[in-house]
C-alpha cells in the first residue's frame, strides 16, 4: 500500500526544516503540530515531524477581498489554488529507500532493514513528496513491542502503538513533567508497570501520596489498580512510614519503617533548610556539629542545654543564636512519629536486598505527607542505598564477574524540584545520582510540575523527558533545556490536551513525538501482568516486520 500523499517540498534548509505545499484537497485540519510524517526523497526516506502550519495566498488581494459567503464555487476553486497551505516539516531521521533507481511515482517505497533509521545529515530536493506515515514507518522508527520496547500510547491521529525503548529509558535519569492535573502519576504508573513487566530494572518508589501500591480513584470515577495489585506481593513490596495506615484492610504492607536520629546527617539538614526555615548559618552549624560529634551529632545537639551550647560555640566558633535555632527546629524533626533515637540500617538493607533480587519497593508515607517527611526519609534511605551500591559497583570492577554487577536501579521521586533545586542538587545524594550515578547503574525518575525549579545541570543530564501540558514559560524553557529545535517542541507542548497527551523526547525515543497515552485499564493490567505484550498484537506485528525487514 502506498502512503497517502499530502504535498510536495518546495523550499527548505537543513537547519530550518522543509517547507511543504499541501496538495489541493488536503486540509490543514487533518494535520496536527507534532504529527509524524514521511518525506520520500530520491534515495532516502525522511522521518519527520510537522512543526508549523501556515495559510498563504498567491495574491494579497485575496486576503483583502475574500470571496463572499454565498460564492461557494469561487471559494471551492480558490482553495488549494490562489489560497493554499504550507506546512513546516523537521526531518529527524533518514533511511535508505529500497530501490533508489525506481522512479518515485512507481516506487512502492518499502523500508529496508539492514540499515535502520539514522539521524538526518541531509535534506531531500525540491518536489520530494510528503506522505502520511504508515504503521510500518512507525514500527521502523519506534520499534515494535519486544523485550525492551513498551507501547506507551498511539499517535494523535492514528491507532498505531508507539513504543518507548525501556532499556534505554532506565539507563539514564528521566523526567515526567506536566502541570498539575495532567496525569503525571498515572503516566508514572504506566511506565513503572512497563519496566516491572519487562524486568529491566528494580524500582524504588518514594510514594508521597500513597498512590502507587494500591488502587486510587480515577478523576472520572472508577478505580485504577496499583502496582502491587497488578504484579502481586512476590514482585512488589510495600513499606510504610505510618503504622496506622499499615493496618488498613486490603492494603497489606511488608514492613513499617523507622528512622533513627543517628541516621540523619548534616546533608539532610541542608536539604531541609527551606522546609525548616533555617538560615545558612544554622545549616553550617550542622556541619560543625557533625565534625565534632560524628554520627551522634543530632542527639548531642538535642540534649544540649544553654551552657553546653555556649561551650560548643566557644570551642568551634559557631554562632550561638544559630545553634539554638537549629536545635529548636530539629526538635520538631525528632518529634515526628517515625523517628526514634537510635536505629540500625537493617530495614534499609533489607530493601536493598529485595531490590537486588529483582523485586521492587514502594515506600508509602501514610499520613506523613509533609514535604519535610518526604525529603528527609527519601534522602536518608537513598544515601544509604547509594553508598552500598557504590561499594558493590567497585567490587564488580575488581572481580569483573557478571554476577557481581549490581542490578539496574531506578529511584522514583516526586516534587523533584525540592531535591534538585540549584542549592540542594549540589549537596544531596539525589543531585549526585542525577549527575554521575548513571555509571553505577542507578538512575532517577523525577516527577515534577515545576521543572524550572530544577538545577539546569541536572536537567541536562535527564535522558528521556515525558511531558504533559505546560503553559508556564519558565517551565517550558526548563523542560527543553539542552534539546534541539525548541520552537517546534514548544508549540507541541502548548498544544497538548490536559489529559492523556504527552510529548516524548530524548534518549528512549529516536525522535520527539506526541502521543495519546495508553488506557490504564483492565486490558492494560492483563497485558503487563503477562509480560508487557499487547494481547493479540505482537505475533502478527512481529511477523509483518519479519516479512518487511527480513
Amino acid at each position: 500500500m502506498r502512503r497517502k500523499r499530502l504535498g510536495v517540498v518546495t523550499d527548505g534548509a537543513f537547519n530550518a526544516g522543509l517547507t511543504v505545499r499541501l496538495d489541493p484537497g488536503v486540509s490543514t485540519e487533518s494535520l496536527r503540530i507534532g504529527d509524524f510524517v514521511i518525506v520520500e526523497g530520491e534515495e532516502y526516506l525522511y522521518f519527520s515531524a510537522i512543526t508549523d502550519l501556515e495559510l498563504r495566498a498567491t495574491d494579497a488581494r485575496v486576503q483583502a477581498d475574500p470571496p463572499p459567503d454565498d460564492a461557494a464555487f469561487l471559494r471551492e476553486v480558490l482553495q488549494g489554488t490562489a489560497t493554499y497551505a504550507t506546512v513546516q516539516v523537521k526531518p529527524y531521521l533518514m533511511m535508505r529507500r529500497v530501490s533508489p533507481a525506481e522512479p518515485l511515482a512507481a516506487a512502492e517505497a518499502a523500508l529496508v532493514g539492514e540499515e535502520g533509521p539514522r539521524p538526518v545529515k541531509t535534506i531531500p530536493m525540491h518536489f520530494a513528496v510528503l506522505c502520511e506515515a504508515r504503521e510500518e514507518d512507525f514500527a521502523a522508527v519506534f520499534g515494535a513491542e519486544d523485550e525492551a520496547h513498551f507501547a506507551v500510547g498511539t499517535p494523535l491521529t492514528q491507532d498505531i502503538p508507539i513504543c518507548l525503548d525501556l532499556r534505554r529509558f532506565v539507563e539514564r535519569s528521566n523526567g515526567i513533567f506536566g502541570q498539575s492535573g495532567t496525569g503525571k502519576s498515572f503516566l508514572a504508573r504506566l511506565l513503572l508497570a512497563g519496566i516491572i513487566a519487562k524486568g529491566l530494572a528494580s524500582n524504588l518508589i518514594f510514594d508521597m501520596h500513597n498512590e502507587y501500591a494500591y488502587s486510587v480513584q480515577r478523576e472520572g470515577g472508577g478505580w485504577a489498580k496499583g502496582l502491587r495489585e497488578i504484579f502481586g506481593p512476590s514482585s512488589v513490596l510495600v513499606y510504610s512510614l505510618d503504622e496506622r495506615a499499615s493496618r488498613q484492610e486490603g492494603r497489606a504492607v511488608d514492613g513499617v519503617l523507622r528512622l533513627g536520629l543517628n541516621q540523619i546527617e548534616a546533608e539532610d539538614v541542608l536539604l531541609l533548610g527551606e522546609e525548616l526555615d533555617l538560615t545558612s548559618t544554622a545549616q553550617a552549624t550542622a556541619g560543625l556539629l557533625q565534625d565534632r560529634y560524628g554520627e551522634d551529632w543530632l542527639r548531642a545537639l538535642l540534649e544540649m542545654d544553654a551552657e553546653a551550647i555556649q561551650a560548643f560555640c566557644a570551642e568551634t566558633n559557631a554562632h550561638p543564636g544559630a545553634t539554638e535555632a537549629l536545635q529548636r527546629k530539629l526538635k520538631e524533626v525528632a518529634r515526628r512519629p517515625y523517628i526514634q533515637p537510635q536505629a540500625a540500617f537493617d530495614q534499609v538493607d533489607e530493601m536493598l536486598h529485595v531490590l537486588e533480587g529483582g523485586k521492587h519497593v514502594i515506600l508509602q508515607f501514610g499520613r506523613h505527607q509533609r514535604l519535610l517527611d518526604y525529603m528527609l526519609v527519601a534522602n536518608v534511605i537513598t544515601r544509604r542505598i547509594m553508598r552500598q551500591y557504590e561499594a558493590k559497583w567497585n567490587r564488580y570492577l575488581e572481580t569483573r564477574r557478571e554476577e557481581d554487577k549490581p542490578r539496574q536501579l531506578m529511584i522514583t521521586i516526586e516534587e523533584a524540584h525540592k531535591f534538585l533545586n540549584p542549592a540542594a542538587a549540589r549537596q544531596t545524594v539525589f543531585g549526585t545520582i542525577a549527575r554521575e550515578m548513571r555509571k553505577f547503574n542507578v538512575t532517577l525518575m523525577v516527577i515534577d510540575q515545576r521543572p524550572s525549579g530544577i538545577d539546569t545541570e541536572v536537567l541536562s543530564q535527564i535522558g528521556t523527558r515525558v511531558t504533559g501540558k505546560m503553559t508556564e514559560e519558565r517551565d517550558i524553557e526548563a523542560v527543553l533545556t539542552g534539546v534541539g529545535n525548541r520552537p517546534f517542541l514548544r508549540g507541541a507542548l502548548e498544544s497538548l490536551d490536559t489529559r492523556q497527551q504527552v510529548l516524548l523526547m530524548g534518549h528512549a525515543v529516536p525522535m520527539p513525538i506526541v502521543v495519546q497515552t495508553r488506557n490504564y485499564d483492565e486490558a492494560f493490567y492483563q497485558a503487563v501482568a503477562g509480560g508487557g505484550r499487547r494481547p493479540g498484537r505482537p505475533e502478527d506485528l512481529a511477523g509483518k516486520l519479519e516479512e518487511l525487514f527480513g
Partner: protein
Amino acid sequence: MTRIGEIVATHSLGFVAESFTLHQPPALGSLVKAPLVAGGEALGVVCFGETVGLQPGRRALRRSDEAVYDSAIYQEHPELVHTIRTEFHAVLVGWQEGGAVRQVLPPQPPPLHYSVAVCTPQEVRAFTERLDYFRLLLAAETPLPSEQLLAAHIRRAYADRGRDDAWLRRAAREVARLLKEEYDRLVTVLSGIAPEGGN
C-alpha cells in the same frame, strides 16, 4: 463536416472567416477547425464576431421607419444582404492530426479561402481533456478581454461536454492556477463560469 465559413484572412495566431449565415457567426468561445495544407486540422476558439458593410470604413445607414423594422427591413430591401457580411475571428489553440491532439500553435496557419467548421461535441470533449491551451487563450490579443473569452469558452465547452461538473471544476482550478497573481481577472472568469446556483 458542416462548413460554416470561409477564411478571408489568416496568420500564425489566428484567422478571420466570413460566415455563410448572415448575422450568425459561431458562438463566442466555440471551438472551430480549419484544414491545414500539410495535413490535419487547425483548431481555434471563436474570439470575435461582427457584421459590416462591404466597403471598409463606411457605416451603414438607418433603414427602419414606423412600419418597417428589424427583419422586415431585409424583406423590404432584398439587395441589402449582398452589401453586408458577417465575419468572425478565431485564435488558434492547437491542431489535430490522425487522432492526436496538440495544444500548441500549428506549424502553419490554415490556408486562405479554405473552409471553417464547428467542432463536434466529441471533438470538443477530446480536445478539452487537457487544459494547457488556456494559456494560449489568456495570452491571445483579441478585441475583447481575454478573461471574457476564456469564460465564454469554458461555458461553451461545459455545455458541449453535457454539463460535466467535474470538468468544470478542473477547468476552474486550472484558471485559478494560471491567474494566481491576478485575483481580479480570476474572479471575473470564475463568476462567469459558476454553475447556476453554485455561485
